[in-house]
Each structure stands twice: as structure tokens, then as C-alpha cells.
């Protein structure tokens, strides 16, 4: 039943998402002030823009680098890919998102992946997965940015705002020099501060809750987790973000990966109201 409900929920979400795409606006609006090739397309290899204060400007609409189907086959095997394709919903499955949504440790050897896990993590991963997105709760960062949806960065001198299309959430990454809070109230999106090291924005996050896992295989996060993000805009169209997760409750040592994003020029984020077209309430009992 649970599987059915989850599937129904995904269909519902997909339905509203697909409906939005058709008539949505500003998805093809040519932005002003961006470098273009002779054919009018945005020059993704042009130099990264800078703000008035001289730092790289990370602003833009970003989509995670999509993993080609060949790479899924190479890394997960033909049978696994076939199973995922059969279960996938058109427009949201393999070929539209990042393979890391399944497992953030995918690039590590299986033995190395296991060595990182403390017994508490193994126990947690054996529990049934929490129904997070089915309940319209945040998938968290980076997971919600690894799907077939975009993330918009808006940079001001004192804060980098991250608008997350999946679930319609925002994160604030404070650039005003404040320290991370001590013993903060655990939250879904955490507390984040950033500082520049040359052209790299280094962001530290704490105060995350433990109610959502980091990826599809269920790597957990605890309230003690610290996450480090290093944002580097390589050129106009490419953003690389090496991530490190430091969580001594669940992992034997810090680990991480690099997530690459590609600029979605002349486009924008869509409104995504998870509770819209909600069909569960009619089935509530007293």
C-alpha cells in the first residue's frame, strides 16, 4: 500500500510539474547582459562574471550536470538501470538527473563505502525510509538539487540566497562574517555562513536535523553533521561544488564528492507548490 501511495504521490507531483511546464513563462526569456555567441546562444565558456566588490558572481539558474545513461549502466549495471527505468516516470528518471541522487558515495569502492559507516549508520539505513517528499517536507541540500529541477542563486554582498525549485524552499548563506550558531535548533536546511578564499566561496553549515537521508540508499545525517561546500564558478556556464560531510555520529571520517552544475541561461525557476492538487485528505478518518 505504501508503495502505491508513494507512486501515486509521485504521479501527482509529476502531473502538476508537467502541467506547469507547458504554459510556464520566462522559461525562454533571453536575459540581458550575458555573453552570447554569434548564433545568439549564451556563451557558456565565457569568463565568470564578477560583482561590484570584485568577487565572482555565482548568481544564475543552475541545473545539476545530467549523468548520461551510459554512465549509469557502467556504474550500476544493466539490470539495475533497467529496473530503475521501468519504475521511472517520464521526464524525471534516468537521463534527466544526477546519478549521485542514488548514492553520494558512488565513486568510492564498495569496501571504502562500508568502511565509512559506523554501526549506527548501518542500523539507520536498515530502517524504513522516512516519507519526506511524500509529506511535502524538504529533501535537503544537496539532494533536492540533484533531480530534474533547477536551483537559482541570487548573490548580494551580505547573503547568497539559494532558491530550490524542488519543494519551493530557500537557503540563506550568510556572507556578513557572522559565526555559525552554537547549539542551534535543528532544522531541515541548516544554518550556513560563507567566506571567500580567493575566487572560491567556502560555506559551512551546521544545525541540520536528522529527519531526512542524504541520498536514495539512505545515508543518514545526524544533528552533529557539519557540511562544507566550496563554490567555484569555473566559467560563465559552469559551477563546481566540492562537498564534505563531517558527521562523527554516523561516519568514521569526513567524506565527500564534487557536484557540477550547468547554467540554464534564459530560463527561470518554476513555482512548485507540493501540497497543490493534494488528494490524500479525502481519505482521512476521524
Amino acid at each position, binding site marked *: 500500500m505504501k508503495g502505491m501511495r508513494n507512486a501515486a504521490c509521485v504521479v501527482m507531483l509529476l502531473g502538476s510539474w508537467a502541467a506547469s511546464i507547458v504554459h510556464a513563462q520566462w522559461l525562454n526569456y533571453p536575459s540581458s547582459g550575458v555573453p552570447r555567441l554569434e548564433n545568439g546562444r549564451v556563451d557558456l565558456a565565457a569568463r565568470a562574471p564578477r560583482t561590484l566588490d570584485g568577487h565572482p558572481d555565482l548568481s544564475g539558474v543552475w541545473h545539476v550536470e545530467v549523468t548520461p545513461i551510459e554512465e549509469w549502466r557502467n556504474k550500476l549495471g544493466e539490470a539495475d538501470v533497467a529496473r530503475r527505468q521501468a519504475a521511472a516516470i517520464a521526464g524525471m528518471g534516468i537521463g534527466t538527473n544526477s546519478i549521485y541522487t542514488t548514492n553520494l558515495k558512488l565513486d568510492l569502492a564498495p569496501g571504502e563505502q562500508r568502511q565509512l559507516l559506523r554501526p549506527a549508520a548501518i542500523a539507520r539505513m536498515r530502517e524504513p525510509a522516512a516519507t519526506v517528499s511524500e509529506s511535502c517536507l524538504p529533501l535537503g541540500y544537496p539532494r533536492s538539487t540533484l533531480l530534474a529541477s533547477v536551483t537559482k542563486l541570487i*548573490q548580494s554582498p551580505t*547573503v547568497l540566497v539559494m532558491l530550490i525549485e524542488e519543494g519551493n524552499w530557500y537557503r540563506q548563506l550568510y556572507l556578513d562574517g557572522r559565526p555559525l550558531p552554537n547549539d542551534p535548533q535543528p532544522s*531541515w536546511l541548516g544554518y550556513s555562513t560563507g567566506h571567500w578564499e580567493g575566487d572560491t566561496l567556502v560555506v559551512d553549515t551546521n544545525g541540520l536535523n536528522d529527519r531526512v537521508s542524504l541520498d536514495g540508499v539512505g545515508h543518514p545525517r545526524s544533528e552533529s553533521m557539519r557540511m562544507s561546500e566550496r563554490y567555484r564558478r569555473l566559467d560563465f556556464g559552469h559551477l563546481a561544488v566540492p562537498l564534505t560531510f563531517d558527521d562523527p555520529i554516523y561516519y568514521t571520517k569526513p567524506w565527500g564528492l564534487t557536484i557540477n552544475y550547468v547554467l540554464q541561461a534564459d530560463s527561470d525557476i518554476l513555482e512548485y507548490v507540493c501540497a497543490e492538487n493534494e488528494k490524500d485528505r479525502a481519505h482521512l478518518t476521524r
Partner: protein
Amino acid sequence: MRVCFLLVFTLCGTSVGAQWLNYPAPGIARLRDGTPNLSAPTPRGANGKPDLDGIWFVDETPLGTFGERPAALRVEIKPEDVVLTPEGQDRQRHGGNSRVSSPCLPLSLPGLSTAQPMKIVSSKNVVVILYEVMTLYRQIFMDGRPLPKEPNPAWMGYSVGKWDADTLVVDTTGFNDQDSILPGRRPHSDALHIIERFRRRDFGHLSIQFTIDDPKIYAKPWTVVANLHVTPDTELLEYICNENEKDVSHMQTSGR
């Protein structure tokens, strides 16, 4: 009603251990005793226009009294200004637009801007408003783009802004007709056009005049003004409406 209580509890629960609620932010005009100087001159951005950035909260609604004043969306609506068309009367008779915040759907303007604090962040091409209410946000495009024609109806609509001297004028269209104008659960249609005029008269004070223009529902446009003050040295709280949700355990399988 039940969900209203839930929201109040969530708000109180979040406040207890939350952080950065008392962090003295840099770049704030202050008096000698360290308190923010709310009557200091209006700050200006690199373009010479008023800098609207800051955390704003509506006047005369002290934080912490939310539970006692759930309807305190502190804008005054003059009843004589609000004249319904026949279609508007019909919709009002049928309970307005029913799908308001109870199932964690977005709140609408102008109540959205006055229910809880909001934060304005300006960048080159866009002004973003972060609302504490349900962690909602709006983008106001400042790059000269026109409003979309026949947009997909949206809860937040589509917004473009331009400066009229020292006033930021924001036009928003493309709303869906699922929610109501707050306060008062007044109906609106998908023809709703809201014009907001943001004016920061000094460091500490911002007024927003809302003009509600919906020819299907109202015989003439009507306006309300919200007066807000800056609340420095604090921050928005995370507000996830579906957190602590208690309904799912009561769901039936309905034979599937």
C-alpha cells in the same frame, strides 16, 4: 481551525532554541547606546536608488502575540472602498475561495507581507522577498522584462519592478484563483493585478501600498497600506508547514 493551532504551536516551538535571533548585524545605523537608529537616512544602493534590503515586520504587532491575534494582519481595509461585481458577490456568497492556508498552501498578498517577518534581498537583476511564512519566496524581476502573456496561473504570480523616483513599483499578474485576498478571505479571480509601491522613508520604516485591481470581482481598484519597520539584529526562522503533521497516520487505505 485545527491547522491554525498547529501553525501557532510550530511557531512557538521553533522560537525557543533558534539562532541568530539576537545577532547584531553589521552595517546598521546605530545610536550611541548601540540600538539601531531607525530614523537615520534611507540607505542607497550602487544605482543611487533606495536600498530596501532588510528584515521587515508590520507595525503594532509585537512578536510573541501571534497566538492571541491570529487575524492581526495589520492592514486597514475601508469597507466602502471594496465594491464587489455581481460575479464577486456570487463568489463571496459561496464562501470566497476556499483553499486557503489550512492544507499548507501559500498565503496571498497583502497578508503574506504582514503575517510574519519578511526579508528583502536585492541583486543586480532581481529583488527577492523571503517570507518567514511557510518559507515562501517571491522574485521581482528588475531587468526590464515585460509581464508574461497568458502565464500558467501561479500562487505567487509573476512580478516585475521599476523605480518611480524613490519608489519601487511592482506589478504582479498571473495569479491562480485558488486563494483569497488576506485579510478577510476576500475573493479574487485569475484576472487579479496587484500593484505594490515600496517606499523606504528612512532607515527604519517601509510602507507598501497595495492596489488590488480585479475587474471580474471588484467594481473598482482598491488600496491598502502596510507600514513596516526594520527589525535588525535578528533573522527569519525556518517554517516548514508540514512539519509535525499528524494526519497521515489517520489515512485509510480506501481499498487499494
